[in-house]
């Protein structure tokens, strides 16, 4: 539904007359910069994650995101865009007419150039697999990780994107709402990250040594790029300039601010120390939680979603100490938990006044709201089950062939030197 302008464009025009739709230069200006903003999130993620590991592994972590830009960028142009956005097949996957971007040009798609729509969507297809890396840092084989995200992007992300956002996608047509990627991006990557972390196993020394972040300033810089870029991610998902984009930008900011506030406060009260990593994690939790809701809820609910989202994720990352798995950088704790919370909250707080293309959630209209909530739960369920199953199969296949994990010696000496032939720092 977030993709409404696109939907209208498609519905009103057979492909042959797509060129007839008109490009709006102001919408295009906003989508140009939004696309650039989402791209900027990828190095943001690299820095956010990179600062949190030990210095001997920082480059290996950075490389996961950086190389995803090349690998998944090309995959999207060659195959992924078509699988996600090509003509519908049963509500699950797109056709192959856009292979190698065939027929994707400057003509209007909605009110922006088709090629720009393709690229904006492509940035989501890059960052989503990169998110997964956070749970398996400091021990996964780089070659196996590359193979995994290539297959995962093709088999998980592209079809999910179709189901949730394509005008004939089965989750969209049933009525679930996901403005900018609660299910497609965060839940899918979050739960896959958990499965992969379980398969790869814990880091050597996990639970015994402390493995603290080596440079929180890089994490801060990464967090800054993520927050900044997220405005493009969420407000760009309006696919146009105007009131809806403005609403999405404002809800995005307020939820992030509220998440930052509540997580930090929780630490302050419980442990007496409000920390920078806590503030950044809360901000991230707020951003994740608002993602599916940004264009369907108003500023007030956005603050609530952020406040609760921060607390929910705070608990989310504490789970692992209870269950003893090593989701090293909390890809599941933040993106999985936060994404599920956000998708549910959309069912509660969505308002047709904010976005006529949406529905009233539980708090505004119990009838439509309960139906919406049901669809949200279905969408979450489909995303979780599908992601978990495919990730497990892919993980097993790779483990049995290439192997998922580096040797103990490589892990001990650090992946930067052993896999990438580099050291991040020289004194």
């Amino acid at each position, binding site marked *: 539904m977030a993709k409404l302008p696109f939907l209208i464009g498609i519905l009103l025009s057979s492909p042959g007359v797509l060129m007839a739709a008109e490009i709006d230069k102001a919408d295009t200006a906003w989508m140009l910069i939004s696309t650039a903003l989402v791209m900027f999130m990828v190095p943001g993620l690299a820095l956010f994650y990179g600062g949190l590991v030990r210095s001997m592994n920082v480059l290996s972590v950075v490389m996961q995101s950086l190389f995803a830009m090349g690998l998944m960028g090309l995959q999207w142009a060659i195959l992924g865009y078509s699988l996600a956005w090509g003509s519908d097949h049963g509500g699950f996957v797109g056709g192959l007419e856009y292979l190698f971007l065939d027929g994707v040009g400057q003509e209007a798609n909605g009110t922006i150039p088709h090629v720009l729509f393709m690229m904006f969507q492509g940035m989501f297809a890059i960052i989503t697999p990169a998110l997964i890396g956070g749970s398996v840092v400091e021990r996964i084989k780089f070659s196996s990780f590359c193979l995994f995200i290539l297959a995962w992007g093709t088999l998980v992300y592209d079809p999910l994107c179709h189901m949730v956002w394509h005008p004939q996608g089965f989750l969209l047509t049933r009525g679930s709402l996901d403005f900018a990627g609660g299910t497609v991006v965060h839940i899918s990557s979050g739960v896959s990250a958990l499965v992969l972390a379980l398969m790869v196993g814990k880091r050597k*020394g996990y639970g*015994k*040594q402390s493995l603290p972040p080596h440079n929180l300033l890089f994490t801060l810089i990464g967090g800054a790029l993520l927050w900044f870029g997220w405005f493009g991610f969420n407000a760009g998902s309006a696919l146009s300039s105007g009131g809806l984009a403005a609403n999405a930008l404002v809800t995005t900011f307020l939820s992030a601010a509220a998440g930052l506030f509540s997580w930090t406060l929780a630490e302050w009260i419980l442990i007496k120390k409000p920390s920078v990593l806590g503030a950044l994690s809360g901000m991230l939790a707020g951003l994740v939680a608002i993602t599916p809701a940004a264009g369907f809820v108003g500023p007030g609910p956005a603050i609530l979603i952020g406040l609760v989202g921060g607390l929910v994720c705070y608990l989310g990352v504490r789970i692992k100490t209870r269950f003893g798995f090593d989701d090293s950088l909390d890809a599941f704790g933040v993106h999985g938990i936060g994404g599920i919370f956000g998708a549910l909250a959309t069912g509660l707080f969505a308002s047709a006044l904010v976005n006529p293309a949406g529905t009233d959630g539980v708090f505004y209209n119990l009838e439509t709201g309960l139906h919406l909530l049901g669809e949200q739960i279905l969408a979450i369920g489909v995303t979780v089950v599908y992601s978990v199953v495919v990730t497990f199969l892919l993980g097993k296949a790779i483990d049995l062939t290439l192997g998922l994990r580096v040797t103990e010696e490589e892990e*001990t000496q650090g992946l930067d*030197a*052993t896999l*990438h*032939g*580099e*050291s991040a720092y020289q004194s």
Partner: protein
Amino acid sequence: MMKRIDAIIKPFKLDEVKEALEKLEIFGMTVIEVKGFGQQKGHTELYRGAEYQVDFVPKVMLSIVVDQKKVEPAIEAIVNAARTGKIGDGKIFLSDVSECIRIRTGERGPSAL
């Protein structure tokens, strides 16, 4: 008599060595990050597609001053904890310390350790 044990070990062995020493009730030590040259050669690194040799290997040096009678147990503990059997496990050097002063109290000798 007090002795100073300077043990140069692989960095990731620090925790294990420390634990082994604590078992001997040696609780004081000072740790220095150093670079080592020796039989263990450094690795090659890349610079824009060109490889170059990195000569040094990151090591950790533990400096522990102990009473004479704890020297042998300490050495044994370090050797056991730090050994991987591969080149570059490191060395232990022993030397004499003629006096030790605890700054906080001014006390001297082994009891100041």
